[in-house]
């Protein structure tokens, strides 16, 4: 097994069966994992903010920072290895918030809403998700199987 770490504002993709893409400590950020089971190509995005209009310059340098530019980069990266949108399975985790929903900084919710809007516009269906709530998550995508595992800071682990 070869672990490839996806940092904040980063995208990694692969078709090597021994690779596992992993991203740690998601708070309000969101991990998007996509996988084409036929060609066994997978990609993992860890984006931080909902919309690249906040800083277009930054979005050019680090497209993975924002939902819109990040999702585009993620899908295109996987297409470059032969993945087909119609076959791709999409799983989403993260977008947590701090306690109390009168919350002054709803960045986790904004990230989730932005992502849904992008997917809706592009006819992408979210197959599985584990979003919201108040804990950190670590997400793993196995390239050999397409399995996605989520581990929470509260200690439980599940397959998404």
């Amino acid at each position, binding site marked *: 097994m070869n672990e490839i770490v996806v940092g904040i504002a980063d995208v990694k993709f692969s078709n090597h069966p021994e690779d596992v893409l992993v991203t740690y400590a998601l*708070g309000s950020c969101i991990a998007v994992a996509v996988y084409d089971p036929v060609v066994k190509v997978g990609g993992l995005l860890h984006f931080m903010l909902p919309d690249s209009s*906040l800083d277009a310059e930054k979005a050019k340098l680090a497209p993975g920072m924002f939902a819109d530019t990040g999702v585009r980069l993620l899908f295109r990266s996987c297409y470059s290895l032969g993945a087909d949108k119609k076959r791709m399975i999409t799983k989403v985790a993260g977008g947590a918030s701090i*306690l109390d929903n009168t919350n002054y900084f709803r960045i986790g919710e904004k990230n989730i809403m932005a992502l849904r809007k992008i997917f809706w516009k592009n006819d992408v269906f979210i197959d599985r998700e584990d979003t919201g709530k108040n*804990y950190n998550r670590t997400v793993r995508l196995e390239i050999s199987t397409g399995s996605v595992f989520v581990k929470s800071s509260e200690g439980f682990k599940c397959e998404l």
Partner: protein
Amino acid sequence: MMIEKILKSIDHIPAFPVTILKVREMLRDEDYSIADMVNLIKYDQAMAANILKMGNSAYFGSRQRIGTLRDAVIYLGRNNLIRIVQTAGVSRYFSRRSRGYVEKANELWEHSVAVALMSQILSRKVLGHEDDKLYLAALLHDVGKTVMGEFVYDSFGKISLLVAEEGYSFLEAEEAVIGINHAELGGKIAERWNFPEEIVAALAYHHRPDSMEKSDNAIAWLVYLADQVCLLTGMTGGFDGLAHRGISDVMHKFDFYEQDLERGMMTLIEELSHAKDVLGIV
């Protein structure tokens, strides 16, 4: 009683590095002597070693190569000098084996450095400049965790049950199970170090600045906000993660909009990417 044991254990915490206080004092004089400053820092060997390890980090912004303490004193400039001295000195409290909140000691240090950086990003926005008192308070805000960790470790099951099942914040669960929370304990440590009241309160109320007697303590509010933004960004200080309460007043207090915080997150990620040497000293 567990609480008495905890309060007793802060007696064993090493004194706050005198060098930091003396450097601050010396820097108050605009014409401090380079030689005196070098001699003062040299005396604290652990600190001197850390300064050399971090001196060339882009985090401290020197364009000259730092090879000796003298280079550091000459090239870093006043603001970065006090920052590096504080960072080098404070790191010792975070380098011991800790459990309870984190698996590895450096996780808590990384969170502390992130909050210190974020505090300066916010300070530039609110006050128009950086602030070394705020930096110190931010760097130390979770120092209580270094002592509480052992006790949280022993009671972790009870605490996390209250958080997961009963809607407690982690802080409330600490109080219910242990009798004191890590912020309050941090305040007691700062008191022991004879810190000014402003910093003591900033540590003690870093999750509840709205309960402070002196509600105009900007340092405490900014540490609070810097901490929360870091927690959301995923730079957490442990298993307590995001189980802390939001206080919306903080936005009106400084006239902040959500976009300001979003931009702050972007700057934080960028600055942290230059901070590897700083994170590496623990």
